[in-house]
């Protein structure tokens, strides 16, 4: 699918270009000082897919996500090698406009972390920072994203109370709404359900399936059955020589149904990891 959008690279006023759509990493490695978190990961993320990244702790799943939206730049001594292309544009070379990058590639963290302000402000504060000041527009996006994450009916009468009064599951959905308000194309989710109870976790899963129609999602999870329920594509990371690597990736049916690697077969049967 081709889509028209603003370029990542400066200057901002360059005319929008038409480019094919996806994230593609080639031989991507990430180092904390001298220690590699993962090495040589080449992965394509298709538009409107839910790619689930699975694997044991310490195999570099979260680090991989943080490289995709360059949050890794903010970790001291963290170096990224290889290449990442977002719609054909390199993320690692040249000066990129972070505001545009983070608007296009949203991120949800493991622990729900709404800001200590009202529910309304949680959504409108980042929007204002991105230059949206019209009250009508702010209100419209607020309602839209809260409806999208299924939170509207639960919070419509208390939009001005603190977001910290919400339950854990509601907080996580608010964080997803906050990211959606910026109209991203890609959402990176780092174990979005691991801090939630089964019912809240189920709601977030439903949401992920719903969002697939409009967004490209990358979800890191430890939960194999959850991975089976939500994935259209799956990737298995593993630790080899104390460093994360990619074992296998492909459409979910293939990875779960007829894996090519023995390790994957053992993992999806629940015999390993």
């Amino acid at each position, binding site marked *: 699918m081709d889509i028209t959008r603003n370029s990542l690279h400066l200057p901002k006023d360059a005319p929008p270009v038409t480019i094919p759509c996806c994230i593609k990493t080639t031989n991507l490695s990430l180092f904390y000082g001298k220690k590699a978190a993962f090495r040589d990961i080449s992965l394509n993320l298709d538009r409107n897919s839910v790619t689930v990244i699975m694997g044991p702790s310490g195999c570099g799943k979260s680090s991989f996500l943080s490289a995709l939206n360059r949050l890794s730049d903010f970790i001291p001594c963290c170096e990224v090698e290889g290449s990442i292309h977002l719609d054909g544009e390199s993320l690692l070379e040249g000066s990129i406009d972070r505001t545009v990058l983070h608007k296009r590639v949203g991120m949800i963290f493991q622990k729900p*972390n709404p800001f200590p302000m009202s529910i309304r402000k949680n959504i409108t504060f980042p929007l204002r920072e991105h230059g949206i000041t019209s009250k009508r527009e702010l209100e419209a996006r607020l309602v839209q994203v809260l409806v999208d994450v299924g939170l509207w009916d639960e919070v419509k009468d208390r939009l001005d109370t603190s977001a910290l009064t919400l339950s854990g599951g509601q907080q996580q959905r608010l964080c997803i709404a906050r990211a959606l308000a910026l109209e991203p194309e890609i959402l990176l989710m780092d174990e979005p359900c691991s801090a939630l109870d089964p019912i809240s976790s189920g709601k977030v899963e439903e949401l992920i399936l719903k969002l697939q129609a409009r967004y490209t999602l990358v979800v890191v999870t430890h939960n194999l059955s959850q991975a089976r329920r939500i994935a259209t594509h799956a990737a298995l990371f593993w630790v080899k020589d104390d460093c994360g690597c990619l074992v296998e990736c492909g459409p979910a049916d293939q990875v779960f149904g007829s894996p090519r690697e023995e390790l994957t077969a053992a993992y999806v049967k629940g015999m390993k990891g």
Partner: protein
Amino acid sequence: MSLWQKDKAFLFVLSVCASLAGVISIFIFFFLAKESVPAMAGIGLSQFVMDETWFASENQYNVLPLLWGSVLVSVGAVAFATPLGILSGLFCHFYAPSAIAGFYRSMVHLLAGIPSVIFGFWGLVSLVPLVARIHPPGPSLLAGVIVLGIMILPTIMVILDDAIANLSRLYLNSTVALGVSKWGALKGLILPNLRKQVGVSILLGLARSIGETMAILMVCGNVVRFPTSVFNPIRTLTANIALEMPFAMNVHRSALFFTGLIMMVLVAILMSTAQTRTSRQA
């Protein structure tokens, strides 16, 4: 001895130690109150606010100029140190390279360890002449505010540094991931949520500075009067006690204890307000 008995013995030692610490401050309070009774009875409370000034040899015991001196110099010091604490905290966390931030922090911690007489000495030989050059006489409210401000900076800085670290650990990643600029996060998220801690650091800074004696005594000139400008010398409650206690007798001595009691009540109010504010946050 069985384990249970050991536990009981240990509990006994702990309770004695804990109650000792609590009882001491109560004893000090009663001691001050007891020693102030002759003054309250002999001079009468009205004289403490109605007399022309504080001049013990002529039986003048107005505490208001002293109290006013203490309040002014403390409030001034807090007003001087708080913005410095906030801005340096933000600089350390958001803009300074970590080596510079680390160096700055260790310098501030060192500042906390410098004895107050050294601050007074520095104020006397460096700051007071400097103030005198702008406006004589030199020993003044302004000199006191600056010296005291530098002395309480570590208290304020440490509280705010901690609060900023906490907030940025919790929220900075999310603001970055949402494409919010550093300045945007500071203005919209960090500063508004820092208000409570700023309040607490102001209260603790006040409590600390209202009790400071030595440095103030050395740079403030110690003239009993209501100042009309920052260049006027002042005398604080604490400096007054330190100056007059060595030769005070009878009612005069008791009057000094009474001023000590006022100080203790003031500090107790400030500390307990700070404490309730902190616990309410938790």
